[in-house]
């Protein structure tokens, strides 16, 4: 982790680098031998820029692993014999360090992804528990040798050490398990959303595109495209605009229907916000729809504008077109649309309708409904 010596050694001999690190730590307690060895190796062994983890020695066989362990013990004993030794804590500490190393290695936690060839061992809970036991035993010996062993304290300390060791060993593994579950859940939600989007696009956009390809009439194409656009917009950006309880939503959906029936684009602009009691609301929307219908059917205009202004007290709706217009007197009695469906309906619910039109000047229907509140 410092100069990459442990990683390099582990690649060469084919063991998990955690053992190599453990060995360096223990050898360092033997009169600093491990530390010196580490520095020497760091200086002498050349950097190998070509080896970026692709060529890793295969995992050493069991006899080789045992052999290396015995060699390590031999070196330690030799150092003890020649006096390179920091006292009685060395052996118990070695026990603790290797116990931890075994526990980590055999728990299957991969601390070093670049060395997967070496570290990808099997997970063995027996070895994990054995490693932890080794650790606890080593620790107990260390504590006793430091003469701080109390009859009660030992249990508590052993417990703390065991729990701590377990947290170190199993914590990352449990965490990765939780992470996996989360990732999986996110992926599932995403794929569900994607499926919903696909279903919606299939039912709406693809159908419309198919219809457009089968249509010869450019006007019809524009209407199809527009109604699809409006539909897609309301689905993407604003679920409320299709809510017919609001003036805006009701006017927009009425406009969409008239547009689809008569192939004339209708733009809807709404300012302010207010609501009407439901009977007045319905009367106003019905009258406005009738006005749009009339404009679409009779005016010959290429577009129709709907503008609503809402304030405390009253709602004004203007339906304007720049088509042929008409003279009121020339409309036959058989056409009851204007009188019945617009004027009389508005009056019944306490509103007014003013129709302004003359031949060649277009038509504007101005509806006012009182009794609005925010």
């Amino acid at each position, binding site marked *: 982790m410092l100069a990459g010596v442990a990683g390099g050694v582990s690649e060469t001999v084919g063991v998990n680098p955690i053992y190599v690190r453990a060995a360096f730590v223990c050898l360092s307690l033997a009169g600093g031998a491990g530390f010196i060895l580490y520095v020497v190796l760091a200086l002498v062994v050349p950097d190998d820029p070509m080896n970026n983890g692709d060529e890793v020695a295969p995992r050493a066989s069991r006899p080789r692993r045992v052999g290396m362990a015995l060699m390590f013990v031999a070196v330690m004993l030799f150092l003890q014999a020649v006096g390179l030794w920091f006292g009685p804590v060395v052996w118990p500490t070695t026990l603790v360090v290797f116990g931890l190393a075994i526990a980590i290695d055999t728990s299957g936690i991969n601390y070093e992804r670049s060395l997967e060839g070496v570290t990808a061992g099997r997970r063995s809970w027996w070895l994990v528990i054995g490693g932890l036991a080794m650790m606890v035993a080593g620790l107990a010996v260390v504590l006793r040798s430091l003469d701080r062993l109390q009859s009660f304290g030992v249990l508590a300390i052993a417990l703390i050490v065991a729990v701590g060791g377990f947290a170190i060993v199993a914590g990352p593994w449990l965490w990765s398990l939780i992470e996996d579950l989360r990732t999986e859940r996110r992926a599932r939600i995403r794929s569900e959303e994607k499926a919903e989007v696909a279903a919606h696009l299939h039912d709406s956009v693809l159908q419309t595109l198919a219809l457009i390809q089968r249509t010869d009439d450019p006007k019809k194409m524009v209407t199809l495209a*527009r109604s699809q*656009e409006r539909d897609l*917009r309301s689905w993407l*950006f604003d679920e409320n605009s299709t809510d017919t309880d609001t003036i805006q939503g009701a006017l927009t959906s009425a406009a969409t229907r008239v547009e689809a029936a008569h192939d004339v684009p209708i*733009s809807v*602009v*709404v*300012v*302010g916000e207010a609501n009407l009691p439901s009977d007045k609301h319905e009367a106003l929307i019905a009258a406005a729809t009738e006005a749009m219908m009339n404009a679409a059917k009779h005016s010959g205009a290429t*577009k*129709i*504008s709907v*503008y609503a*202004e809402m*304030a405390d007290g009253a709602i004004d709706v*203007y339906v*304007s077109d*720049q088509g042929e217009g008409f003279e009121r007197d020339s409309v036959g009695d058989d056409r009851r649309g204007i009188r019945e469906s617009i004027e009389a309906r508005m009056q019944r619910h306490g509103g007014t309708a003013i129709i302004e039109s003359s031949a060649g000047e277009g038509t*504007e229907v101005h509806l006012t409904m009182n009794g609005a509140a925010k």
Partner: protein
Amino acid sequence: MTTIFLVDDHRLFLSGVSAELADSFDVVGQSDDVDAAVDMIRDAVPDVVLVDVHMPGGGGVAVVGNVLETHPGVRFLALSVSDAPEDVIAMIRTGARGYVTKSIAPDELKDAINRVAAGEAVFSPSLAGFVLDAFARSVPVEADPDLDSLTPREQEVLRQIARGYQYKQIAKRLSISIKTVETHVSSVLRKLQLSNRHELARWASDRRII
């Protein structure tokens, strides 16, 4: 001939609009990238820039803001599929002189470009609606009452635009000259761009513009 420049990250739309306008205008350049567009516009200095709102790298607001810093004479017309108030108002506040949606008819688009080139403002019915909405919901603050409210005449002109009338018709309906209609619209634009009042800011923040 009026020189125009097109900025849009949808190449298909770019080539379509450019073919559509080539007869009536001198298309001096086009770009599908915000940063490149800023440099190219500074070099070409066109009369009018048609700019899309949603683009990676800061969008239309970045193009308008950066160019106006060095070349205040270039005029911008925003052109977008979006008809959301936050997009519209943000473009206008940054300095665009008009806003139209991409579904606009070719003749109306040409008319809008000519208006912007002449230094006028172009308000679509929905933009007029947003502006009325913004000013209607707020109470003018003391600081600058001239900027912070619309005159009754300006409101009336905006209402007529929202109802779908052309300037010529509005002039006739209100018995004023077309020039006066244009003056009212430009003054509304100026108020939108200069007005600092916190009511407009709040209106904007309610709609997540700021």
